[in-house]
């Protein structure tokens, strides 16, 4: 247990404290220099859509970074459950797994919704970093449009800003709905 504990702590510390841009630069610029271009994934096809090495690298960077935050959100949820609950579980003879499964985690997951939502919203906006690492995502598309229609810069910018707002609102409202649904009378 203690080795896993240390490893997890190391991972979280490392990736939570590294700026996303640096992780991206490492994945997209340093890795190819070291000879890892991830070209192997190019053969994979998911429902007619081909995975590209660039997409894979961007996903990898975002995953490594965001996982650390998800991890911390989960930990805060477990910590939100009063210690008495676990003790009570053990007192009625539940094993560690059982007390986790039936007592602690159901309460922890409810507490985890708000911080996890913030992490997902941050992830959504962080995808824009991929614009300068070979992905033709929203921000890159916006730049193409502003370059092509330089007389319409402001409307284009506002349209994309509104697009992001809509996406974030969908995530937020969903999370409020879930929160209300699973609320427990305390």
């Amino acid at each position, binding site marked *: 247990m203690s080795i896993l504990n240390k490893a997890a702590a190391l991972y979280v510390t490392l990736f939570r404290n590294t700026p996303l841009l640096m992780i991206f630069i490492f994945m997209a610029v340093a890795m190819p220099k070291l000879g890892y271009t991830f070209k192997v994934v190019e053969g994979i096809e998911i429902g007619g859509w081909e995975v590209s090495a*660039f997409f894979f690298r961007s996903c990898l960077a975002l995953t490594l970074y965001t996982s650390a935050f998800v991890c911390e959100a989960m930990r805060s949820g477990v910590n939100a459950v009063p210690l008495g609950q676990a003790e009570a579980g053990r007192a009625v003879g539940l094993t560690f797994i059982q007390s986790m499964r039936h007592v602690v985690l159901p309460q922890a997951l409810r507490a985890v919704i708000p911080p996890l939502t913030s992490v997902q919203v941050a992830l959504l906006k962080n995808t824009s970093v991929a614009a*300068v690492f*070979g992905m033709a995502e929203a921000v890159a598309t916006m730049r*193409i449009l502003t370059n092509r229609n*330089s*007389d319409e810069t402001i409307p284009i910018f506002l349209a994309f800003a509104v697009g992001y707002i809509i996406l974030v609102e969908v995530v937020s409202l969903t999370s409020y709905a879930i929160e209300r649904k699973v609320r427990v009378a305390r």
Partner: protein
Amino acid sequence: MRFTRTKALAVATGLALALAACGDAGDDGDDGADVDVAENAADDFDEGTRMKALAEDGKIRIGVKFDQPGIGFKGATDDAPRGFDPEIGKILAADLGIPASDIEWVETVSTNREPFLEQGEVDLVIASYSITDERRKVVGQAGPYYVTGQQLLVRSDSDIETLDDVKGTEVCSVTGSTSLDNIKAEGAKPRGFDTYSECVDQVLDGAVDAMTTDGAILLGYAAENPDELKVVVDPFSEERYGVGYSLDHPEMCEWITDTLEDAQEDGLWADAFESTLGESGVETPEPPQMDACA
């Protein structure tokens, strides 16, 4: 005034070239062509024009690119940018009586060229600035002073030889650039990066198959890595580089056009080309026909 200046030019250029080796204090360490600075230039312009104001000020701010070898490039330790665009800037400034040492070079990237002109951050933009109808709605563009076209830069061992070969390959350029748009239309997967140098590295590392942008820029990079990179494909688009100015000062158009036409005639344009883009071994082209001012 103008004629005596033109006559004196041949003599002066010879002298200047002879003296250039000595290096004078006013020269800020760049090795472009030398341009004669007009004297009492303020008297040449009508009252109330932007040119007169600049000439009386003795200062001008010009926006150029800092990351395009041959066109406009400024290394970390350089005092001033070098390239064809800065040379054109010096020719224009000299006509206002402003020496190269008094030009304030401002770095412009593709996305901030129009805002910089509209907000008066710079007086001129000479930054591989292709003339388009959309841009002419918001800023003035005089020129073209140079015409180039989009080509491809590939590794020496690449199989890409014609434009048809790029279908399905990954081609990089600067995020949001016209070149990226054009290559997408040819069936390639566009890969945008922040700067041209990152893109070249991706080609060298084998992460992408090719890089695309204006041929003039690619030649500069090929010249830096002649063993590993080559430029292929005949130009498949036409990019007409113009000088950007603010629409608040429409009188600048005539002045820019006249000055550059004079420079084309008396060989200054050719000197500017040979000392910059021409160093990669390209023939000096015929100067393009400039558009008439509206």
